[in-house]
């Protein structure tokens, strides 16, 4: 018996020992980057899901008419030039000689098709073409985009609309993005055919996506891309934080998009690992129900304290943002007094000023507003959406309690949380907002415009804040250009600062962790462009 056991143990040991060193050997393979993040893209359809996890995969394979540099500034993509013929008609000159990965030539027909596809009711990209009436082919390499109203930020928006092949989509019966009524899987869910820097080799959802360098890509010849040398990209999502980091430490993964904050100190000290960090274009803030006559989740009866500017200011004064930055966020946040970061068009430092942390002032304001004993309130919070979201809420609850506002935190996973706030079933809540179009209008329109049912206006304004002066300025932002538009944005930011529709907290910082021989330039939208990356 004893002998059998020993033999079994020896066998097991031998099995364990044989794997030695395989991980390192793989890493040396011809400039492959094995990259990981918590979640995978739900679909590869280019116009179906407007979320970061989809974009981070698609933007390696698909091009846009106007594209972005690593610092997110605009540059020519599939269009080499563009100009406004009339205020509502933009003319784009297309790049010649571009081919899709499966060989189709890229022409004006494809642009018209792509714009129409993004305009389809089942598209999730409506916000990027909300002002577009139609696209018109002028000749094979010239396209006009006709607008319903003048749109100064059309180029910013088009930088998010992928150009796809008309013939390929027609052949595979995928002219419209996925319709939820369909009972069958669409071809585009697992296949992609772009013009971009990488082409899809294989795709196993939630397991592995392999892409290979597209040697024919026009951009390799451009001066700032000559250093880029990635031959193969292997994306493998790993949901568990600890495992993802273990994969990086053990050399099975080269690049981790979302290392957890608590592991960063350890990663910094690990040999052969580099952490790069930068601001993300996402701002975390607290919004309040300023609409109802009585809050749903409060012990104040017969009136709504949040309608009183002094209460909003008091709650603002009570927050020690430096403490949150230092302890909750471990330095990975940029405290702010406004609701989008400097990379966004329209930002001005003059309006990015916080009300100072001042508990005494907070208590005085509460007393002035008629709440000398404070009041009780529920703070709703997601617990898996933003960096340390639940911990932020707990810190704030403690700070508010110190000035007499007894706060209970209700933290939930994102699915029930968003379902709840979208029913307006909320009094005070924490929300984060990213700005993919990099223009102030996107934030103003969704978050503080009065809800009116039209595309985008106030759609994420669950506190139902409403201010006619603000609404007028937002309408000006939609149509005006140049100086007067900037003035409108700055004026709206001033109102935002003075009227406290939200209590802004911070912009998120995003760390990326990679092996030290991998160089991926940091991107503030948290979507790495591997076409700018290199491996030594």
């Amino acid at each position, binding site marked *: *018996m004893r002998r059998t056991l020993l033999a*079994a143990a020896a066998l097991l040991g031998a099995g364990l020992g044989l*794997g030695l060193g395989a991980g390192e050997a793989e890493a040396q393979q011809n400039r492959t980057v094995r990259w990981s993040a918590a979640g995978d893209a*739900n679909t590869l359809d280019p116009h179906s899901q407007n979320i970061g996890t989809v974009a981070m995969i698609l933007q390696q394979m698909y091009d846009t008419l106007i594209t972005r540099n690593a610092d997110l500034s605009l540059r020519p993509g599939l269009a080499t030039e563009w100009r406004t013929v009339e205020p509502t008609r933009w003319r784009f000159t297309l790049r010649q000689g571009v081919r899709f990965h499966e060989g189709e030539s890229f022409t004006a027909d494809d642009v018209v098709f792509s714009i129409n596809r993004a305009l389809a*009711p089942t598209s999730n990209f409506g916000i990027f073409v909300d002002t577009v009436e139609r696209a018109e082919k002028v000749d094979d390499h010239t396209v006009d985009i006709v607008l319903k109203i003048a749109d100064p930020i059309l180029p910013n928006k088009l930088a998010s609309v992928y150009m796809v092949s008309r013939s390929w989509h027609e052949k595979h019966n995928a002219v419209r993005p996925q319709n*939820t009524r369909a009972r069958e899987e669409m071809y585009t869910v697992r296949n992609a055919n772009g013009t971009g820097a990488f082409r899809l080799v294989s795709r196993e959802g939630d397991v592995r996506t392999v892409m290979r360098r597209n040697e024919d890509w026009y951009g390799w010849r451009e001066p700032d891309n000559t250093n880029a040398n990635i031959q193969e990209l292997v994306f493998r999502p790993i949901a568990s934080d600890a495992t993802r980091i273990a994969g990086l430490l053990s050399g099975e993964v080269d690049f981790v998009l979302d290392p957890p904050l608590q592991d960063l100190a350890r990663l910094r000290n690990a040999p052969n690992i580099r952490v790069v960090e930068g601001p993300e274009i996402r701002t975390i803030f607290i919004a309040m129900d300023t609409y109802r006559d009585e809050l749903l989740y409060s012990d104040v009866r017969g009136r709504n304290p949040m309608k009183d500017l002094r209460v909003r200011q008091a709650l603002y004064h009570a927050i020690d943002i430096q403490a949150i930055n230092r302890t909750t966020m471990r330095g990975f946040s940029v405290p702010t007094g406004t609701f989008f970061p400097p990379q966004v068009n329209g930002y001005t430092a003059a309006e990015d000023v916080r009300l100072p942390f001042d508990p005494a002032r907070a208590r005085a304001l509460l007393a002035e507003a008629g709440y000398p004993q404070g009041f009780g309130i529920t703070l709703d919070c997601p617990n898996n959406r933003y960096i340390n979201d639940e911990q932020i809420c707990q810190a704030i609850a403690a700070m508010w309690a110190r000035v007499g506002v007894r706060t209970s935190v209700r933290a939930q996973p994102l*699915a029930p*949380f968003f379902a709840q706030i979208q029913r307006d079933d909320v009094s005070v809540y924490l929300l984060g907002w990213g700005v993919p179009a990099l223009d102030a209008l996107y934030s103003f329109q969704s978050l503080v415009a009065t809800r009116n049912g039209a595309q985008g206006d106030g*759609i994420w304004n669950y506190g139902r804040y409403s201010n006619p002066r603000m609404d007028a300025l937002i309408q000006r932002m939609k149509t005006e250009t140049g100086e007067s538009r900037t003035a409108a944005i700055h004026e709206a930011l001033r109102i935002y600062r003075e009227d406290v529709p939200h209590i802004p907290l911070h912009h998120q910082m995003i760390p990326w962790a990679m092996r030290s021989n991998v160089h991926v330039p940091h991107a503030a939208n948290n979507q790495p462009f591997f076409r700018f990356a290199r491996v030594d």
Partner: protein
Amino acid sequence: MFAFIVSRVLQALPVMLTVALLSFAMFAYVGDPVAIMLGQDYTEAQRTQLISDLGLDQPFFVQFFKFVVNAAQGEFGLSYRLSRPVADLIAERAPATLELALCAAALALAIGVPMGVYTGLYRNSWLSRFFLTFSLIGVSLPTFLIGILLILTFSVWLGWLPSFGRGDTIRWGWWSTGLATWSGLKALILPAITLGLFQLTLIMRLVRAEMLEVLRTDYIKFARARGLTNRAVHFGHALKNTLVPVITITGLQLGAIIAFAIVTETVFQWPGMGLLFIQSVGAADIPVMSAYLLLIALMFVTINLIVDLLYYAVDPRLRIGGGKGGH
């Protein structure tokens, strides 16, 4: 025999319906799939359209009835999250879970039974004491912690085994296997140990207790009196008679292994059904969740049926006495 099976199947039907109803009722609390599918930008019209497309505006029992009718035909619709047929998704993920679960169960048996026999025979040896102490760890440490510790040791420190994934797989028809490739086998080791450890200690303790009991019985004394070798007594007579409860527990635990592979699969990013389920919960992907829960219920029912039939085969008293007396 046939009547026995039929009665068991009839008993299983209400169980399945109850599971379906409970899981369906639960989905009201997992969140709103519509909110997740629409993303950051949408209009009220798009929202209403989507709700009616998904049939979420219908009364609960209408939705439930449709679900049961479709499920009975094996039709679970499209996943909200992945826009793919649920049946395809589960068929793709099932081999990974089943291979992992079977390997874990095999490991638990192959190591647990000998360890149980040994500790039963040599109660006071230091090795037995070591095994018993060790088994406490297996019972008391939570699965995710065991998984993380194994990853830390064998992947990060020693660099011997992969920390996640399934390695390279080979397809045989619709079945994808990791058992036929070197990297697939290596990737299997840590998850199988993590998943099987609890069962291993359970089987060990069970075999030990049964052995101790059987060794006290008269027929063992007679066997010894007849001068049979220790080997014949221990394995031919004692072990054989401990096996009935071991079969039961292993069978039932196989269901548990498959169902609770969720944690192990999450820790090791094992692309099986458990991981699919967890990701579906995050996205309120009701079609996948309901199909998974039904499948697990079906599996438990089937395993119970098989175990009953095995009893029938192993224990002659059941055939004659109609279930009187036990082991």
